[in-house]
């Protein structure tokens, strides 16, 4: 094609597009709410793990879908409409998307903007300050400044979880299995694979290691990080190394990436433990999952906005208020494990024992 022809074609296309834009731009193509009864609009911004990481972000989306009857969340999940809100979700692909995504919903006047993830703390802090009349909620964090200090904005509800409680439960399972020799390789070695070394991840791991050592003082603990929350290949690599060093029960704390841990364990017929949501169906090797009821917390936050009881500040979800827990999956847990679980649950709830929350 010669220059002039390409140029003409280009000009023609540009003109056509311009005409179409002018014709259609004037009218109101999309309606954004505004029916007779005011529908609450809730916006959810995920972190880079993606909507279907089968844990973290997925749970928040689940909570939203339970509450929503319209909105783009309903094209990804089944909406139950229990609160009749409009639920929209946007996935962040990089840290640099957090502020623009949050601002997008805030600027459109959504009634509640939910950020999922500790890494969004500063972004929530910034945007909540710019839009004091919009309600914000953040899972696993509070609105902070650049130094990580809680700005204590009254329009921000920080939903924190005591992941170490859940970690302790699954750590007990692992420890008792190793002690009694019911583990696949009888190696007395267990592993954990974290995503990025951030507090929520380390809480889980700390509780896990603490409880495992409690149940089996001679146990060998391996811990590694993939530095990634979305690519299973990276977690598979770390898992492989731990397996090569004898670990036969692997706890994944890496969201979507961590699914690679579960499949690697399955390939070697070992045991694995899921995180945040019930990951029973990800792989047959999953014997239990540490639960973090993010879906419940999300739903409750939306409910509080709907019935006007929204309050800024921190709410902590732990074993004592059923905010975390565990789920037995593809293995019938033996009696000694169940007994140990009952025992430690009672002790944590009563405050007699407190799991570690930091990893050395």
């Amino acid at each position, binding site marked *: 094609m010669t220059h002039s022809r390409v140029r003409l074609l280009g000009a023609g296309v540009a003109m056509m597009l311009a005409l179409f834009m002018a014709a259609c731009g004037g009218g109101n193509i999309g309606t954004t709410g505004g029916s007779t009864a005011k529908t609450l609009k809730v916006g959810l911004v995920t972190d880079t793990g*993606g*909507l*279907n990481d089968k844990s973290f972000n997925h749970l928040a989306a689940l909570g939203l879908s339970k509450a929503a009857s319209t909105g783009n969340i309903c*094209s*990804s999940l089944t909406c139950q409409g229990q609160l009749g809100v409009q639920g929209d*979700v946007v*996935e962040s692909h990089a840290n640099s998307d957090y502020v623009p995504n949050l601002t997008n919903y805030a600027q459109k006047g959504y009634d509640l903007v939910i950020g999922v993830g500790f890494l969004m703390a500063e972004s929530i802090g910034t945007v909540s300050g710019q839009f004091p009349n919009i309600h914000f909620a953040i899972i696993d964090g509070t609105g902070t400044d650049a130094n990580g200090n809680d700005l204590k904005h009254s329009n921000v509800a920080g939903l924190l979880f005591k992941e170490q409680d859940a970690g302790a439960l699954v750590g007990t399972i692992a420890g008792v299995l190793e002690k009694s020799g019911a583990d696949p390789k009888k190696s007395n070695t267990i*592993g954990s*694979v974290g995503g990025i070394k951030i507090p929520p991840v380390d809480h889980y791991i700390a509780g896990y290691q603490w409880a495992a050592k409690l149940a089996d003082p001679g146990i060998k603990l*391996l*811990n*590694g*990080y993939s530095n990634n929350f*979305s*690519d*299973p*290949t*990276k977690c*598979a*690599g*770390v898992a*492989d*190394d*731990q397996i*090569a*060093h004898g670990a036969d029960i692997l706890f994944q704390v890496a969201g*979507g990436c961590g*699914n*690679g841990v579960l*499949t690697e364990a*399955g*390939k070697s017929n070992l045991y694995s433990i899921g995180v945040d949501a019930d990951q029973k169906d*990800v*792989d047959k090797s999953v014997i239990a999952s540490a639960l973090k009821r993010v879906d419940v917390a999300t739903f409750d936050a939306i409910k509080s906005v709907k019935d006007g009881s929204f309050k800024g500040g921190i709410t902590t979800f732990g074993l004592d208020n059923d905010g975390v827990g565990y789920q037995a999956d593809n293995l019938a847990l033996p009696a000694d494990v169940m007994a140990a679980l009952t025992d430690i649950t009672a002790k944590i709830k009563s405050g007699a024992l407190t799991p570690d929350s930091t990893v050395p």
Partner: protein
Amino acid sequence: MNALKDVLQLLVTPGVWHATLQAGALLLLPALGGVISERSGVVNIAMEGMMLTGAFFAVVIDLAAHNVLLAVLGAMVAGGLMALIHAVVSIRYRADQIVSGVAINIFAAGVTVFLLNRFYGLSDVGQVPARDALPNVTVPLLSDVPFLGKIFFSQNIMVYVAVVLLIAIQVLLFRTRLGLRIRAVGEHPQAADTAGINVYLLRYGAVASSGLLSGLAGAFLAIGVSNTFVPGMTDGRGYIALAAMIFGKWTPVGALVACLIFGFGQAVYDANSSIRISQYLLSMTPYLLTLIVLAAVVRRSSPPAADGIPYVPGAE
């Protein structure tokens, strides 16, 4: 010190070498493709995109048809088609081959996620069940050899395939008539044309081969290692393969050495659970090593003489 002890301890366990071989094989396949393509005179920096496309279609086909062989073939075809786009643009339209390569990589990144969203909604593909994945092969008897057995004879089937292809392509390029013609086309297309060799056909074939190999690598990654598709999962491996090819002086065996070095780096990083050195410093080693070798050994990298120059009959 502790750190040194950890590293030495790591080096004497088969695990890290096993991982090295796997990671190296994953890099070797696209590198071999690059070698063939560039030996014929077509610059190919699109291995990343072709590999990603192969990975995507491997998973999609495997999930739909539950047939590993079909999935692998599909992946190769997908990679080959991407390569053909590059071939047509570069050979027929004599476009700048770097632009075309860059465009393929961008296009692949976009189209895979675009189709992902179309087929599966927001970013979920699901897991490929183990029975539909590329299996690990444990060679009986040989795999019981202490240390070496676990490393060489207990790998994913694709590792063995890569070794076979390595030998085959090395022989092909340097000991067969076809290989001679491919290289002639890349060094002196004018002379080759005069001698009656079809320059265009050979170049098309070479570029297509690079697509097939990269697609195969994509299948390995997607249904041999990860058992799922994640946007961008190739993660720069295509570019590392490119570097390996150049570092290896456009020979298959040379590329192998480089791929093993990079594979080792990957394996060491994954072993961060057992080493008390910063995993981040450790990860730099293969790249620093390569730089040091490049700095210490004065070597002009001589690619095929006609590499990157579109062939115009009678133009010289």
